[in-house]
C-alpha cells in the first residue's frame, strides 16, 4: 500500500477492498468536487465458452504499481481531476470477488467519467497483470483481447 501524493492513492494488494471506504476517501472533506465516478471489476463465471470457477492473478510487483502511477499521471494531464484511487488485487480470487477498483472525483462529471474509463482502458493494456482461469476444463491463461488494445489506442486519437 502506498499513496503517491495527497490526492492519488494506488494500491496493489491481495486483500479485498471496501467500496464504502473507498467512496468516503474520495468524498470526505472534499467540497470542491461535485462528481464521483467509480468502477469495480469482478470475477465472472463464464469466459470464452468456458465455465470459470476461480481466477489466479499473477503480477510483476515492481512494475505494477509504477505503471498504475504512470496511467494516473496521464489521466491528470487530460482532465481536471480531484482525487484518484486505484486498487488492483492479485492472488487467487473466487467467483464474484472484486478484482479492481478505480475511483475519480472531479468538479464536473464529464472529467470524472472520462478519466475513469481512460484509467481502466490503459490498465487493461499496460499494467503487468495476467489472469489464469480455473474452469471445468482445467487451468488456462486468458488471452489478451484485440478489442481492449483498440479501446486504449482510441484514446490516442482523442
Amino acid at each position, binding site marked *: 500500500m502506498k499513496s503517491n501524493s495527497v490526492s492519488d492513492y494506488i494500491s496493489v494488494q491481495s486483500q479485498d477492498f471496501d467500496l464504502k471506504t473507498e467512496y468516503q476517501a474520495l468524498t470526505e472533506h472534499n467540497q470542491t468536487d461535485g462528481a464521483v465516478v467509480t468502477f469495480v*471489476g469482478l470475477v465472472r463465471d463464464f469466459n470464452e465458452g468456458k465455465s470459470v470457477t476461480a481466477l489466479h*492473478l*499473477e*503480477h*510483476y510487483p*515492481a*512494475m505494477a504499481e*509504477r*505503471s498504475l502511477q504512470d496511467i494516473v499521471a496521464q489521466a491528470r494531464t487530460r482532465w481536471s481531476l480531484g482525487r484518484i484511487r486505484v486498487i*488492483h488485487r492479485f492472488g487467487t480470487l473466487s467467483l464474484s470477488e472484486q*478484482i*479492481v477498483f478505480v475511483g475519480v472525483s472531479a468538479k464536473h462529471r464529464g472529467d470524472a467519467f472520462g478519466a475513469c474509463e481512460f484509467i*481502466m482502458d490503459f*490498465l*487493461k*493494456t*499496460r*499494467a*503487468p*497483470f*495476467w*489472469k*489464469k482461469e480455473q474452469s471445468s476444463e482445467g487451468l488456462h*491463461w*486468458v*488471452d*489478451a483481447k484485440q478489442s481492449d*488494445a483498440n479501446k486504449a489506442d482510441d484514446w490516442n486519437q482523442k
Partner: protein
Amino acid sequence: MIRVLFFAQLRERLQTDSLDMTECANVAELRRKLSERGDIWQEVMQSERCLAAVNQVLCDNTQALKTGDEVAFFPPVTGG
C-alpha cells in the same frame, strides 16, 4: 550483470522465473543470447507475443542495456 525476469505463460514454458546474464548491448542481443539456451527459448524469445520491459518500463528491442538493469519478459497483459 543483467537481471532477467519471466512472467505468466513465459515463466511456465521456460520453467524459469529469473536468471542473471552477462552484459548485452540491447534487448535484441539479450533475446539472441537467451535463444541459444534451447528450442523453447528460441521460440519464446523471437515471438511477437513476448514483450519486454527494462527497469519496469515497456520498451522495444533497440533499448540499450547496462549492468544492473532489470529486464522482464512477459506476454500481453490481461489484468483489470
